[in-house]
């Protein structure tokens, strides 16, 4: 925020800036929908005074693929193949939640082994998602090199996913009833190799990013989320934890096998882009630790799938449920309604980006520098497909 003479800045009336574009004090530009400084297909309509953002409006709609509607035209089984497409960096949360909702509505219990494997894939996906974020965060402040490293390491994780599920991006591995296949032989060893590589990477990143004058200067004090904003803006996940709130569904409402795992909620108090980066960075180590715990404690044998009724005619009793899980970006939820037929009546997907990329970003962007807008957006780890389901 420009701390000098602010007479040229718009007057704030009723909490809103009054902007007269004809005054030639302001310029309106669009960042996105095709722009390296936005996360995915989203557009920011930015009003600037000099290089300071005085107003920002988020525009969505460039990505709308109508998943929720498509799901109403798919049988319960067919649905699992498209929910993963809602989120490219972290499809498994969607797969898990869809399956968990279907299982809850139909009263199916999943074998223990499947729960362990599901937890493993969720943690791997979280780590992969953080790796992608880390690259984006560094690049948004001008350091593209880190992104090259982290995306390559994410690919090592995708290799493991490929081996486990048969797909790199869209795993389509967690199905209603369990998972599609057991862990391949030797996967734990190969996964451990990847984890070791990632640990080395994280050490390097710590040196070049978290001990980097430019990164510190630009990210500290950027986009401060005050504690009272957390609930009024629907702030969740690492962003809320960086604001000092110990909120994590894995602890608060344990699902799968999280209750059996040993970990603490990582919190911080700075609540700016830098603190959020630190929180996520620590959570990456936490992921690695959790994956190791899972691999060492997972049962060796046992069923990984409970047969569901013939999927061609599978009707699920009428009812509704809301299932939620902690994704890398925060709380993720599926509201699912069955009217007793072979097709869902309604499925509503709620991801953290819905509030983070619209209300929160619009608030936090005011008075930031245009150059920091990309860094701010990445620090909220927004993902447009979650907004446009």
């Amino acid at each position, binding site marked *: 925020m420009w701390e000098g003479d602010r007479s040229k800045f718009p007057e704030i009336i009723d909490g809103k800036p009054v902007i007269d574009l004809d005054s030639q004090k302001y310029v309106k530009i669009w960042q996105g929908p095709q722009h390296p400084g936005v996360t995915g297909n989203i557009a920011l309509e930015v009003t600037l005074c000099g290089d300071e953002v005085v107003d920002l409006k988020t525009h969505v709609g460039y990505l709308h693929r109508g998943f929720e509607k498509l799901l109403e035209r798919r049988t319960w089984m067919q649905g699992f193949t*498209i929910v993963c497409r809602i989120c490219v960096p972290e499809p498994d949360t969607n797969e898990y939640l869809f399956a968990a909702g279907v299982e809850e509505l139909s009263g199916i219990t999943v074998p223990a082994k499947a729960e362990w494997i599901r937890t493993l894939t969720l943690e791997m996906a979280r780590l992969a998602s953080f790796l992608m974020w880390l690259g984006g965060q560094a690049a948004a402040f001008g350091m593209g090199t880190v992104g090259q490293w982290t995306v390559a390491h994410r690919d090592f994780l995708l290799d493991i996913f490929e081996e486990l599920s048969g797909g790199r991006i869209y795993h389509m591995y967690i199905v209603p009833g369990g998972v*599609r296949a*057991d862990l391949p032989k030797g996967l734990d060893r190969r996964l451990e190799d990847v984890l070791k590589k990632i640990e080395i990477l994280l050490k*390097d990143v710590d040196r070049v990013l978290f001990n980097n*004058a430019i990164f510190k200067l630009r990210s500290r004090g950027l986009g401060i989320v005050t504690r009272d904003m957390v609930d009024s803006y629907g702030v969740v996940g690492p962003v809320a934890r960086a604001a000092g709130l110990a909120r994590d569904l894995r602890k608060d409402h344990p699902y799968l096998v999280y209750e059996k795992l040993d970990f603490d909620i990582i919190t911080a108090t700075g609540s700016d882009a830098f603190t959020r980066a630190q929180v996520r960075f620590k959570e990456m180590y936490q992921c690695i630790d959790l994956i190791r715990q899972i691999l060492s404690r997972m049962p060796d044998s046992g069923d990984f*799938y409970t047969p569901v009724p013939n999927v061609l005619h599978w009707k699920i009793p009428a009812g509704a449920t809301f299932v939620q899980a902690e994704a890398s970006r925060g709380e993720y939820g599926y509201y699912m309604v069955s009217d007793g037929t072979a097709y869902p009546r309604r499925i509503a997907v709620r991801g953290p980006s819905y509030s983070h990329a619209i209300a929160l970003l619009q608030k936090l962007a005011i008075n930031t520098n245009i150059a920091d807008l990309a860094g701010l957006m990445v620090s909220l780890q927004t993902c447009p497909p979650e907004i446009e389901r």
Partner: protein
Amino acid sequence: MSLRDIISPFYVWKRAFSKPFTTKKPLSDRPGAPRYRGFHKNDLNKCIGCGTCETICQNEAIDLVPVPGIETTLEDSGLRPRIDYGRCCWCALCVDICTTDSLTMSNEYVWIDADADVFRFVPGYDEKEWQHQDRGYRRSEEYRLLHPQRTDMKMLDPVTGVGSFLEIVQGYSREQAIREAMRCVDCGICVASCPAHMDIPDYIRAIRNDDLEEGLRLLYQTNPLPGVCGRICTHRCEEVCSLGVKGEPIAIRWLKRYIVDQVESSSFRDILQQEFVPNGKKVAVIGAGPGGLSAAYYLNRMGYSVTIYEKYPLPGGMLRYGVPEYRLPYDQLDKDISYLLTLGIILERDKQVGKDIGFQDIYQQYDAIFFSTGLSVSYKLEIPGEELPGVIPGLQILAEVTQGLKPVIGRQVAVIGGGNVAMDAARTCRRLGADVTVVYRRREEDMPADREEIEEAKSEGVKFIIQAIPVKISRSSAGKLEFFWNEATMVSQGEGQRPRPEAIPGAVRQLEVDTLIPAIGQGSDLAFLSEDRQNQIEFRKYKVKVDYLGQTSDPRIFAGGDIVNPTADAISAIADGYRAASGIDKFLRK
């Protein structure tokens, strides 16, 4: 902020000199993972073209198309999946649900072509290098979308069974029937193999939807004796069921029975609502067996006035007099038939054509005639001693039991033959308290009887002597029958031919019995036709020759049932009745 924060970022240079992670082109040294969901493969010989892959595909990327070199047969639609890679999302649900496990995926993932059309291809037929690739996605053994196990049927245990004539198969409950109906994949391969082409997938769907009235309506479209067929049908549909390739076929026959059993006979009329307008024409049906009843029903629906002439006091033909009560209880047979008789079909009982009424009279009185008089004359063994008292044909024993006569058969009984009549006779005799031995010329696997009949007979204590050629019968000094048979070896007759039994010289064995029951097949009795007429009607291989409408060489005479078709079972007779009814209608409308 410190000096360290200025210097530390230069650490990036460390990685500038390390080996890059990326793979250089071509990608051949980076194969997909062993489980990779790559391009599709299909084993065309294993695939039966059931189309379940097409049904499950959420993208409609799969079409079933004819493929040169693949013939349509009863168990194979002759079609193969063609996949459109413009639509496919590689979810592999098609692989997961494949009923034969023929559809799999390779781990190949690079395919470049300038022609967009090539990406719509028939895996396994269009030659692709990955077709013989071992690696790639396939369904895990423990993960199944289909249910290979049939829902258990409650059966009378063999001990209770052999002590009474109670029905052995107890029938499905509502939950069991729905569970069994849920297994069906709706492929419809079964329809072609059913002689009556019953609408099997739809009536199974009606069970799933718990809409038995709809189920009943569907049954009566092609079969007016569904309660009978739900019990004793030879169920060729189940032999071709796509679920049967990797598991147990759907219990189609028992599901049909479930529908009929659950609906009260008094409500049949309301449900089926068969109003028709009489068209003033009259058709005579000779024989109230399944063929005759079927023809009568469909003719009646078309508005014809139908009279059935039956030589026995009760209708049903072989269903009543040839099928034992433990397989088809009389009250269930009556349930089917009594509904037909409420529709206005006239049944002339105890009226044997040729004896009580002349064929010529009928020929003059009616616009058309359908006859399905069945095979009622038992074949002879053609061995010495056959005329001795105590040698009773299988059909005769079965008919006597039905009529409530208690045939005297003694303690020891031998049944000669390996067909369903032989099994019925053997198991009936067991129920009459005799020790029964079945003697058959060939091997057990050559027996024409249904597999389950043989198994049930065994479980009821019937003994089997196989590869035994009957030689002669004589009377022993103790008053018993001595049955001599010769051990046989099987002599190959070349590929595709049934091996022939050949007597081993000197290996004659002997069996002492009270009653000997030959059940080696039956022939027709066409004595009701005058000799002229018999000469007029064409025959082929001892069967009456009819055309595709069931019409004999006399255009006003139609025929069906065992005297016409080679399969000689109830469902074929029912199908013949339907065909002849349509044929008569076509003929009389001309």
